[in-house]
């Protein structure tokens, strides 16, 4: 694939394609750094601990039926889990267009934010809600 510019990222929340309402996406999967330094070493030694998953998406808000608010508010209110799918482009998943899948929960939802003359935007941080974490699919 080579270097590329994000122009056509795919964002699917709870089955609905919201790509047109998203302006940035970050797939974060940090792992805990667990120190395991013993006596006799000049350097600290770290092990990889538990992994975490957070996918952050910046959205333009839309209150139309079936759109952004209609998709995010119910899963925020209920606390239910839901599937989240992200791809670098809208093309089908492949080795060069990997699909990041996560069973998510939404713990914070800001339905309205912005100043005068600005577009109503907000960031949604989708948190991992499943032991499988972020799965990378290539087909």
């Amino acid at each position: 694939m080579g270097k590329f510019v994000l122009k056509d990222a795919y964002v699917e929340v709870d089955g609905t394609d919201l790509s047109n309402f998203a302006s940035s996406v970050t797939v974060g999967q940090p792992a805990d750094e667990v120190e395991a330094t013993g006596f006799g070493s000049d350097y600290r030694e770290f092990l990889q601990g538990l992994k975490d998953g957070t996918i952050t998406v910046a959205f333009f808000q839309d209150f139309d039926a079936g759109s952004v608010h209609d998709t995010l508010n119910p899963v925020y209110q209920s606390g239910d889990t839901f599937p989240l799918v992200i791809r670098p482009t809208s093309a089908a998943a492949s080795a060069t267009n990997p699909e990041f899948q996560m069973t998510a929960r939404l713990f914070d939802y800001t339905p309205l934010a912005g100043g005068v003359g600005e577009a109503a935007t907000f960031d949604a941080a989708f948190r991992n809600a499943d032991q499988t974490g972020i799965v990378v699919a290539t087909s």
Partner: protein
Amino acid sequence: MNTYTVVGDKSVLGHEPGETFQADIPIAQEERLIARGAIEPGPGNTPLADPDESVDRSPRDGDEEPFSAELAERENNDAGDDAGERNEL
């Protein structure tokens, strides 16, 4: 698999508006998609178990044993045996 039609103006699970497709959608997600007017279920669809409901429900340490006639009978027999042992002492 169940049949659904995309009736909203946004793609659902990779299927374009107006498209009819087959998928196994968990109940909770199906309800939300229908509630927000994204899909319509086809006739004769059968509900699919929610993933959250399909977790292992077998008893774990600390759980109370489920009541059963067989279990009650065994406990009665054990109690009788204990009483007999105590009488012997």
